[in-house]
């Protein structure tokens, strides 16, 4: 029997994706407005993470862009801001609250739900 200490260390899944998080992706809103963000930020969304890391990839993601015909520009902008806020929060650099304007809360929540973030 192999003792706990001698077992080969499993590969850290985060590490495996490391080479993949470089570069940028383009998110396109319902109105056709384009947001170019770091791939690392886009991966905060589980939905985008799945798209960007699935073997073969979705046709859009191979070209480095994802269209959201149901998410309007101002909501998509807010979501991109959240991606970066989340990265900073997780690394301990962000302590301020993430601001959400009351008039967009419900639309933002539905988009966040779709993006699983």
């Amino acid at each position, binding site marked *: 029997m192999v003792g706990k200490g001698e077992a080969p260390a499993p590969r850290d899944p985060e590490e495996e994706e490391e080479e993949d998080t470089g570069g940028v992706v383009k998110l396109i809103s319902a109105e056709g407005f384009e947001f170019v963000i770091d791939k690392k930020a886009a991966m905060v969304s589980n939905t985008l993470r799945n798209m960007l890391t699935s073997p073969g990839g979705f046709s859009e993601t191979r070209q480095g862009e994802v269209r959201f015909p149901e998410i309007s520009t101002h909501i998509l902008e807010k*979501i991109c801001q*959240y991606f970066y806020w989340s990265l900073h929060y997780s690394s301990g650099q962000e302590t301020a609250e*993430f601001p*959400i304007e*009351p008039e967009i*809360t419900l639309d933002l*929540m539905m988009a*966040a*739900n779709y993006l699983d*973030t």
Partner: protein
Amino acid sequence: MGSACSRKRGQLVHEDDLYSARFSKSGSFKWLLHTLPRSNSADVHRRAQGPALGRCPSLVELCVAKVREDMNSYSDFSLLPRDLSQQIFNELVECGGLTEASLGAFRDCDLQDICLGEYPGVTDVWMEVVASQGQSLLSVDISCSDVTDSGLSLLKDCSSMQSLACDYCDQISEHGLKTLSGFLNLTSLSIKKCAAVTAEGAKAFANLVNLVNLDLERCPKIHGGLVHLKGLRKLEKLNLRYCNCITDSDMKYLSDLTNLRELQLSSCKISDFGVSYLRGLHKLAHLNLEGCAVTAACLEVVSGLASLVLLNLSRCGICDEGCENLEGLVKLKALNLGFNHITDACLIHLKDLINLECLNLDSCKIGDEGLFHLKGLMQLKSLELSDTEVGSNGLRHLSGLRNLQSINLSFTLVTDIGLKKISGLSSLKSLNLDNRQITDTGLAALTSLTGLTHLDLFGARITDAGTNCFRFFKNLQSLEVCGGMITDAGVKNIKDLKALTLLNLSQNGNLTDKTLELISGLTALVSLNVSNSRVSNSGLHHLTPLQNLRSLSLESCPVTAAEIKKLRLAALPNLITVRPE
């Protein structure tokens, strides 16, 4: 002065209550719903800190919290996807922010779960919105509400319902229970303490053939009603605790419920004859007969229930004769024989119950000889020997029980010299030595037990010198030292026990305000008792840092209720139990 003498806790002890520290609100405490914080202290802590440290809140969570803040500006969530409106609903209930007005926004939202158990102010008006969820509704909890028959009847079209709890709903009548008979998909039903559950009212249950769990605890008029359960063949769990009008004649309707796995009958008026109806329940794993008027004669029937894992015979009239029938119950993990007339002669029949993890022999006539038969019960985790004739000599039979996590030796004949024999039980977490014969010498023999989380030395004669041992017990969560001989100097050895949530230093008449100053760093404290000491009004300000404090007892001290109240209002919002008041 009620707390001045050593005492036994709780008159009736129940397995599941042992694990539940939650403040239980029953019907007669409805008024408390408006004053108590909704969550327990752990939740209060969590809420104050936001989501678990290090984990980033999801955007959905942030939006839900934002909606809760601005709830007044929303009137309709019916266009939201169901999972989102459900999250908002749950959040509002959790933080106590749901009102009759804000509830309206959830009309026709296809919610699946409406858990308003113990929520303040729930009335029939609320039930209209609950009922508007229609076929989506799967589970409802309106326990402790003022919902009446007409409110309940609004749910009649919600026939998908799988789970319903209406405990302590004292406005519901026999007639109102008829609504339940339409819920054919119901698998779980709880109606604790409901006077409407009578021979007539229980008719509603006969239709509910899919029921798996049925909880009718404390229904005071249920006699004659169990006949309507006899067709509920899928029943696995049935709770009839404290239905003290249930008699032997009711029991016969349980005899065909052969899928029963758990049956709670404590404090029912049943005798050995009533137990005989359980003969065919071969799947029964939990049987609770606590406080029933049965004798050891019923063990003949019980011995045939080979699946039993938990058997509670506490406070029955069990004598030695008949206990040989326990021998075959080799699957037993928990056996409660407390408060019976059994002697050492009974314990020989337990020696092969090698799967036992919990054994309760509280107040039985057993002594050192009997413990010999427990030697081989290597799985034992918990052993209750309080108020027995066990002495120091008997403890040697326990020194091999390596898995023992909890042992109660209060009010036994054990003295200091006996404690050496349990000093090797390194799994011990809970130790009760509430016993006048125990002194500093005995405590010094136990310093190897560094895993202790609960130590009760209530009546033990521990002095300041003995408190030096406490530094070996860094994991202590509860400590009681009330022998009268501790001074402020001894408390210095307590001030670093940062994990303490319960501290009882009452009856130590020499403790002064200095004690409060010393313990002011024990910020995890939930309960503090320094009654019968010299603690005074001028020392109270030292308690300000104890933000988790929920219970404070300073009975018979030179303090005034007014000053404590001032402290509570100014600094300790979680404090709900205060003496003097």
